[in-house]
């Protein structure tokens, strides 16, 4: 408690007693540190935060925080996060998962959270492989990639997560990497503060099944700060232009932040509730709605 009577949280306040079981050297160790730091900067109490994930290595992340967590169903982190946010709009809701969880089995959900502008921050730990199941092609694996499910090289083009969410109209789109933890924490913090759907793609290396070029050293070699390039995050078309370099360059920072965020779905629901509440029936007469007069 500070002298002004407000609570001040430290990153350790968001760290649970569970020990991560990721492979030593995994990029996700840095990601969880970035999340602790971002949450400390936001300053919400752990019990005011709900953290939902899908299935995969990275989806273990809610368990390593002191927030309420739900390691849910493969690809279904977003619908569950949406339900939580609608049921309790005061909660800070985070969703997380891997590239397979988010852009393959769960790929259909992203568009709908974006068009509704749900006030949720979605963090994808993108390692271009299904690591937990021992190295199969994922939706972001590069064309030609040799894995146990593509012995002669992948014939498919990868999904570009940045263009994907920008095209659907996400209000906040950013990319980060464990090559710059301070920048990653700041980016996650900014995403959480954005009033609406915010997406952060984190290039998080898989040390066991990832290729050499995708490890920290390789990522550092292709990293470029968007702020350093003079990119204006209010310019959506410039963001889309830069996002096309996904896979060749690692642009770090905010691609797009809507300078005039539209109302969130939660705001619209509140508005509608206020409008209809005048004519609303008392609870004991609610079934009258279904009785023909």
């Amino acid at each position, binding site marked *: 408690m500070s002298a002004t009577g407000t609570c001040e949280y*430290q*990153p*350790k306040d968001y760290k649970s007693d569970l*020990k*991560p*079981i990721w*492979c*030593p*050297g*995994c*990029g996700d*160790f*840095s990601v969880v*540190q970035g999340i602790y*730091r971002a949450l*400390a*900067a936001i300053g919400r109490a752990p019990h005011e935060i709900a953290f939902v994930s899908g299935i995969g290595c990275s989806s273990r992340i809610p368990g390593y925080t002191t927030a309420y967590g739900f390691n849910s169903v493969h690809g279904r982190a977003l619908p569950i996060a949406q339900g939580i946010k609608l049921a309790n709009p005061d909660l800070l809701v985070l969703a997380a998962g891997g590239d397979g969880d988010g852009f393959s089995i769960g790929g259909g959900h992203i568009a709908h959270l974006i068009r509704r502008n749900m006030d949720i921050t979605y963090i994808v730990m993108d390692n271009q492989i299904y690591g937990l*199941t*021992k*190295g199969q092609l994922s939706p972001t694996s590069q064309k030609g990639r040799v894995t*146990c*499910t593509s012995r002669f090289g992948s014939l498919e083009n990868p999904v570009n997560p940045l263009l994907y969410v920008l095209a659907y109209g996400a209000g906040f789109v950013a990319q980060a990497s*464990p090559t*710059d*933890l*301070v920048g990653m*924490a700041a980016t996650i913090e900014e995403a959480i503060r954005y009033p609406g759907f915010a997406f952060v793609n984190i290039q998080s*290396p898989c*040390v*066991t*099944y990832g290729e050499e070029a995708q*490890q*920290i050293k390789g990522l550092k070699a292709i990293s470029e700060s968007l702020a350093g390039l003079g990119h204006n995050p209010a310019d959506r078309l410039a963001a889309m232009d830069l996002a096309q370099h996904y896979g060749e360059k690692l642009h770090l920072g905010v691609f797009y932040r809507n300078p005039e965020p539209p109302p969130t779905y939660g705001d619209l629901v509140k508005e509608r509730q206020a409008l209809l509440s005048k004519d609303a029936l008392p609870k004991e007469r609610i079934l009258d709605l279904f009785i023909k007069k």
Partner: protein
Amino acid sequence: MAMRGIDFAKLSLMDALDLAILVEDEAQERYEEFAAQMDLHRTPDAAKFFRYMVENEAKHGRELSARRVQRFQDAPMAVSRTMIYDIEAPDYDAARAFMSPRKAMEAALASEVKAHAFFEAALPSLKDAEVHALFAELRDEEILHQTLVKAELAKLPPDSGLSDEDFVDEPAPQ
């Protein structure tokens, strides 16, 4: 390694001592994490060495804390862990399942080199004479720490020339 929101030119002795304590605290915590990772991945020799580093970092932290209390008692800390990252703590990327004790020690040595470089680089920006003296002392201590790790490395039998990767099975389809 990185720092956020610290103006070295205005750094007071109390803040400098607190930062030094936080640097040791971060390194201790990271070595604890590494030891736990090695236990989990059946790499006991590396775990043992990382625990040795935990004790070392804790010892340095205690020494600095005692100096801080002696000089500034329980005055509230004005700096926090969010301001520092990876100053003396080994990079997360330095750990590997089945890493040899040699690799573990090399990771620790690289961290001590990194910490030395940090204090060395900060020195020209420091204006306060006492803070300058403290950072110079901490920089020199990093050389001592390097010597300690090198001594541990020297106790190891000669390297077999095999890589840790030689003992890891190829990924197999399920």
